[in-house]
């Protein structure tokens, strides 16, 4: 209720929390974004966390990137604070020591001057750091493009934590400076490397600091806000590698990196994260350049192939399935060309080689929807023409290519439709399967529900212009099958009117 009234008053809402409170703030912000931001409020919320443990996995981070919400989340992290790194260790590995650490936290949060750190602190820090090292070096091997097969084998022998950072991170160096970092791959590396020991003397110090700093946000940030010494790390791929100051812009960046204790290796890892980001943007540019080819191929299918099919008085689906003439062969070639381009895009998406926001872009969602509606029926026709349903199984469950699944999901996300509802491009598969079941005129009762559902959908889609009217031509597979259905059903069917016309 309070949130609703704030929205109506057109106020910006800030969700915030320390430690676990931060995780709750994140979830609250997400709730707000889902409920209000997409429809009512145009004022973005802000989520500020302090010493918050990792809350989501890689897919979570990707989804936020897709919706362009990542910039609404800002996480403050003290350099040695162990809580933001905690979940880089799988829970079973820290269970034993965790009890006493938690007790210490509980005591400290109520009474500031609570006593010394528990003796498990040192072991605890070591375990978290070891696991963080595994996560970070594993990620770095992938960022840097290692092709050694040993990497994959070893990974399957250990348990790596699935938690990943997302959003914008602000690291507090400990002497008042603030370092801003937005690239999640880089943040992961930084979480590990900034917590390394610089010398022997620190072996005893750091574990204590890692616990105490969790409560140091207020004083640290007061100092920082006065100093206003903020370094925003961009262009990661050209970060200075050597700790010596070189002058100019690099000097400020370098002193910030030094204050975080980043070794040469650490800087190489950050550079690798930057290179990946650049590569994703490069890939995006390459894909954008292919847009024209997609349009061309689709335009030809839409105009000349459709016209030809109209002359033959069968819909595109059936003409393509029969493959009688040169035009059908050519249409098949176009279909194969488009398949190649879209498969390349989907492949890149699966490997996270495109920027996160790609799947949310209006232009691509629309292009994907147009492609699906135009070409998926042809793919289905090809499938059933080659009797692949008897080789492998029904198209919908066993044969449907990812390029159609993905583009369907894009649309459903963008227009807030329920999952699986945008099925106008593959209803032909259902027609073929139902035809097989009712072919001998007997199996109707079994599949009655499916038939009814299909008819309702067809009615909706034809009337809404999502499906072409040529599916209702007299010689089409759909109509020919429908006519074999029992009389009593046809009389009451919702699409009988459409078919008569």
């Amino acid at each position: 209720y309070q949130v609703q009234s704030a929205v109506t008053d057109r106020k910006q809402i800030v969700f915030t929390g320390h430690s676990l409170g931060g995780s709750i703030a994140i979830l609250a912000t997400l709730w707000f974004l889902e409920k209000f931001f997409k429809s009512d409020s145009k004022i973005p919320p802000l989520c500020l966390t302090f010493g918050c443990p990792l809350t989501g996995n890689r897919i979570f981070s990707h989804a936020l990137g897709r919706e362009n919400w990542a910039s609404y989340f800002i996480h403050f992290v003290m350099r040695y604070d162990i809580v933001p790194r905690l979940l880089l260790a799988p829970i079973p590995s820290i269970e034993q020591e965790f009890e006493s650490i938690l007790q210490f936290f509980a005591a400290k949060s109520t009474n500031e001057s609570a006593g010394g750190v528990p003796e498990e602190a040192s072991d605890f820090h070591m375990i978290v750091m070891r696991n963080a090292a595994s996560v970070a070096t594993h990620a770095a091997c992938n960022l840097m493009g290692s092709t050694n097969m040993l990497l994959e084998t070893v990974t399957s022998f250990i348990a790596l934590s699935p938690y990943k950072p997302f959003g914008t991170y602000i690291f507090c160096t400990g002497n008042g400076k603030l370092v801003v970092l937005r690239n999640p791959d880089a943040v992961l590396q930084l979480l590990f490397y900034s917590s390394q020991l610089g010398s022997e003397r620190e072996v005893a110090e750091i574990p204590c600091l890692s616990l105490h700093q969790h409560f140091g946000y207020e004083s640290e940030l007061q100092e920082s806000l006065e100093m206003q010494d903020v370094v925003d790390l961009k262009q990661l791929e050209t970060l200075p590698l050597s700790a010596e100051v070189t002058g100019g812009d690099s000097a400020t960046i370098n002193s910030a990196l030094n204050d975080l204790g980043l070794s040469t290796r650490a800087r190489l890892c950050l550079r690798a994260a930057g290179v990946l980001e650049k590569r994703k943007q490069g890939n995006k540019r390459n894909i954008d350049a292919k847009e024209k080819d997609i349009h061309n191929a689709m335009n030809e299918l839409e105009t000349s192939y459709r016209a030809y099919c109209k002359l033959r008085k069968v819909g595109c689906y059936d003409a393509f399935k029969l493959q009688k003439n040169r035009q059908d062969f050519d249409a098949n070639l176009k279909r194969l060309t488009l398949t190649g381009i879209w498969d390349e895009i989907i492949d890149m998406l699966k490997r996270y080689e495109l920027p996160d926001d790609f799947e949310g872009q209006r232009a691509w969602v629309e292009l994907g929807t147009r492609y699906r509606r135009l070409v998926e029926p042809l793919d289905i026709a090809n499938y059933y023409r080659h009797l692949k349903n008897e080789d492998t199984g029904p198209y919908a469950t066993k044969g449907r290519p990812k390029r159609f699944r993905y583009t369907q999901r894009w649309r459903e996300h963008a227009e807030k439709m329920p999952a699986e509802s945008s099925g106008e491009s593959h209803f032909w598969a259902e027609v073929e399967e139902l035809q097989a079941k009712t072919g001998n005129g007997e199996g109707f009762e079994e599949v009655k529900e499916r038939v009814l559902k299909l008819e309702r959908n067809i009615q909706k889609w034809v009337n809404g212009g999502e499906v072409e009217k040529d599916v209702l031509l007299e010689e089409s597979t759909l109509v020919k099958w429908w006519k074999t259905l029992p009389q009593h059903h046809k009389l009451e069917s919702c699409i009988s009117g459409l078919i008569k016309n």
Partner: protein
Amino acid sequence: MDAEASPFETSEMLAAFLASTPLLSDSWRLCDVANATTPRGFVMSVVGDVGYVAFSGIQMAGSLDPGCGNLVPLESAGNGLFLPLHRHNEGEEPVMVHAEMLHLYLSLHISSTFQIQMLALMEQSKSIIITGHGIGGAIASLCALWLLCNLPAVSSPSPTQVLCITFGSPLLGNASLSRAVLRERWGGNFCHVVSKHDIMPRLLFAPLPSFSHLHGLLHYWHLSMASPSDNLVFQLRNEDKAELLRFVLLHLQVLALDEQEAPTSTSFWPLGSYLFCSQEGAMCIDNAVSVVKMMHLMLMTGSPSSCIEDHLMYGDYVGNVCVQFLKQRSFMQGDLPESSYEAGVALALQSSGMDIQESVAGAAEDCLKMARRMGRTPNLNSAKLAIRLSEINPYRAQIEWYKASCDESDDQMGYYDCFKQRETSRRDSTVDLNRYKLASFWNRVIDMLEKNELPHDFHRRAKWVNTSQFYKLLVEPLEIAEYYRNGMHRVNGHYLSHGRERRFEIFDRWWRERRVSEEENNQRSKFASLTQDSCFWARVEEAKEWLDEARQESDRKVLALLWEKINGFERYARKLVESKEVSKDVVARNSSYSKWVKEYSALKSQMM
């Protein structure tokens, strides 16, 4: 934006990853136990989800001298335990391994306790690490090879993972073995830890039978492994150590300076990945030529005593490397290069402890750079292949079109016979050309896969499994037709055993190994679009020959055998036709198969 060369040095990062896991230290600990408590045997242990098997480094059986570098072919000496490794390409040597190591492993293998305990371990853990120190490592490698060769291709719910980690173990086999292992995609299952000066992994680069003090060396090591803290009375003479070091270095140098990619003569060659460790750090290299060079360069910085003692220092090295994650380690030596790759190389060099030694630093840097991935990333290669595939799909579509018209044509011969008996016509020569272009493409795919230029899971990706299967079913009949049309069977032998191109066998394997969720046994209502056995027509051709032979054969025994084969084929083919697993060209009235059926019934009734 294609990066042509890898922009980062990765061998050190991989070593850091490995060191951060408990796998190295847990393996070593068990090796230590095996050395001390079970000479000539092995120990097993379970840590969490992972099962460990460690073979003792003390493994001399009586009069056998494991120092002799005799190689034996795996096919003949391996007792049939390593079937997938028998194959080798034309012009290559057969796969060979060290004779005595194989013997040692085989004698362990046949003992019933070993088999029982292995099975028990595999039931308990879904991941197995096989490990060993020194000779124990070589035995571990053989054990790992045996497991990999015999694990069911798809065991449910997920196949058992196998990793072999060895410490200071001697080389196991020749270059053909390494190539075969790479072809089977097992290169990532072997990690050999080699300390900077340890002479044991380098011994077999030199022809050793002439070296008489080897026995003494092994004896010294064994004593030290068994009781590490005792003060040993037995020691090698300093002159002997120096001579050994010189001898090995000499031969290693020849090999290392040889610019060829792989040796052509029968000699030992690296297998899998090598983790080189020194006091300063570690790095992990899988490029075999780089491994040989690195072994040479590091040994050059050693002394006669260090090259012996380093074999016993793995505990220290592993312990050191496994805690390095905790501290910042920065670059010490002067100016850092600005390029990411060069800086990475400099750091790796520092970790190998070779940057300060002028004599070897330059060569070591070159050696690392040689291991750099040149060319596109595997993922990019895969993406480019997908585009190339869509470019050649029209050729495949044309062949599909051709098949359809053959099946519809008036002469009712069907696809196979149409092509086999074709006159020269434009349409047919186009088909021939397209067949050739498709073969070219798919051979290139296989080649890239075996050279590790494609992603490791490429052959499990649905798109490629399905596309290759479709290609095989569509085009292999044409290959068979061409083979028999040209009478190749009279020259080389039948297609099935002598004429079949390798890519089809590989595609068979991909199809067999694909993940299949519950099989629904659906009856076919019409003949399949493509005959589901792509070698069907080759079987028909063989059956034809059997019938011809049967007509002329007088010897009763031979005749009986022939009829057994003929009847076998008849049953098989009939079943296929009845379940409609064949395309309609098989049952066309004038197809080779239909004619065969007629001849078969005629001959059979004659026999009655």
